[in-house]
């Protein structure tokens, strides 16, 4: 999904390259910093209780021996990796959880892409590794990445708990009601969506430590 061009984001650069330029650039940067703070506060109101409910379900699953599988593409693949490493190697004294980020094994990823198709790279790994009661966390800023959607469908088929982080209006993941816990960041900026998603999954991890008690 594309964003507006720099001409739209920084009109003053194209109208005016005089001494005021620095001040405009400074102000627009400060606006972006303010924007993510406001967005996080809005999400706290909308999703506070739902994060707690999701954390309760995840903590219960982990108590029963669930493993965590995470997936996403591009920047979201690095978030998937961060979700996995936060749960697997948490700040002390938290208890580590078995977690695997599905975009990390390049041999598996390239084999599946070459032989089956990129749309199935996460679904096929879940079919092989996933069990009833495990947890799947998928991230997609557009909510429309086919390989993330296919993985969610596979996780559902296996009886896993499914959690999705998406942006914009939630895309296909929201329309098709594909996941048990869905968190939509209502922004049109990929950057702000990713920044807010990082906070959401960090807070989700924190809440799993108290089984959803965020008071």
């Amino acid at each position: 999904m594309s964003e507006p061009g720099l001409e739209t984001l920084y009109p003053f650069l194209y109208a005016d390259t005089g001494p005021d330029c620095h001040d405009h650039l400074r102000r627009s940067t400060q606006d972006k910093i303010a924007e993510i703070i406001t967005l996080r506060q809005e999400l706290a109101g909308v999703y506070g209780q739902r994060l707690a409910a999701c954390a309760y379900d995840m903590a219960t699953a982990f108590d029963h021996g669930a493993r965590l599988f995470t997936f996403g593409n591009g920047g979201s693949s690095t978030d998937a990796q961060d979700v996995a490493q936060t749960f697997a190697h948490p700040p002390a004294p938290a208890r580590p959880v078995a977690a695997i980020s599905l975009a990390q094994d390049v041999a598996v990823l390239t084999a599946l892409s070459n032989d089956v198709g990129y749309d199935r790279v996460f679904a096929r790994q879940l079919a092989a590794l996933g069990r009833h009661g495990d947890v799947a966390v998928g991230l997609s800023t557009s909510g429309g990445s086919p390989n993330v959607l296919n993985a969610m469908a596979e996780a559902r088929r296996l009886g896993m708990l499914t959690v999705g982080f998406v942006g914009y209006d939630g895309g296909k993941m929201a329309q098709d009601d594909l996941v048990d816990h869905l968190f939509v960041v209502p922004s049109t900026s990929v950057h702000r969506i990713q920044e807010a998603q990082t906070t959401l999954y960090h807070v989700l991890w924190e809440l799993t430590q108290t089984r959803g008690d965020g008071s």
Partner: protein
Amino acid sequence: MDAFERRVGPGSALSDAVDQILRACQDMAGRFRQGGKLIVFGNGGSATDAQHVAVEFVHPVIVGKPALPALSLTNDAAMVTGIARTEGLDDIFAAQLRLLASPDDIAVGISAAGDCANVLRGLDTARELGLLTVALFGGAEPRQTAADHLLVARSADPLIVKEVHVTIYHLLWELTHVYLEQPSAVAR
């Protein structure tokens, strides 16, 4: 919810660093203009950030923006564990920089705690080799570094530091492109 409230202070404090961010981006644009590439590194959660920074520059989110050369030093487990076995974990980034870096390049070292020995050594090595060095640090008391640009997310919570770092490197990408397109927009 308390978890969200704890994020407001460190997020707002970033406003005080806007001039530093603008200066770093102007220098980064200068290096890209000279043909330099971006090399990024970090540990744990910051390793995921290093990879995010690299993909941000190589595969721009805004259609039509030029791809800029960038790579992260944490992708190849064989390379990293091989160097760690013989040279030690503290040398995993410096050793790769000595092989891959050119003097026109940019090194971005990320450390949420601000005290990672291998990141500090990587930045020192990069500086000796002539690279522009940018440190993305965090923690209550980040270590001193000789990096050209030190950008700090002040929080003792590494998860909150990471969230501020994501905003910082998104701004680094966007503003570097602004300075590349508009060299007359001089930072102060």
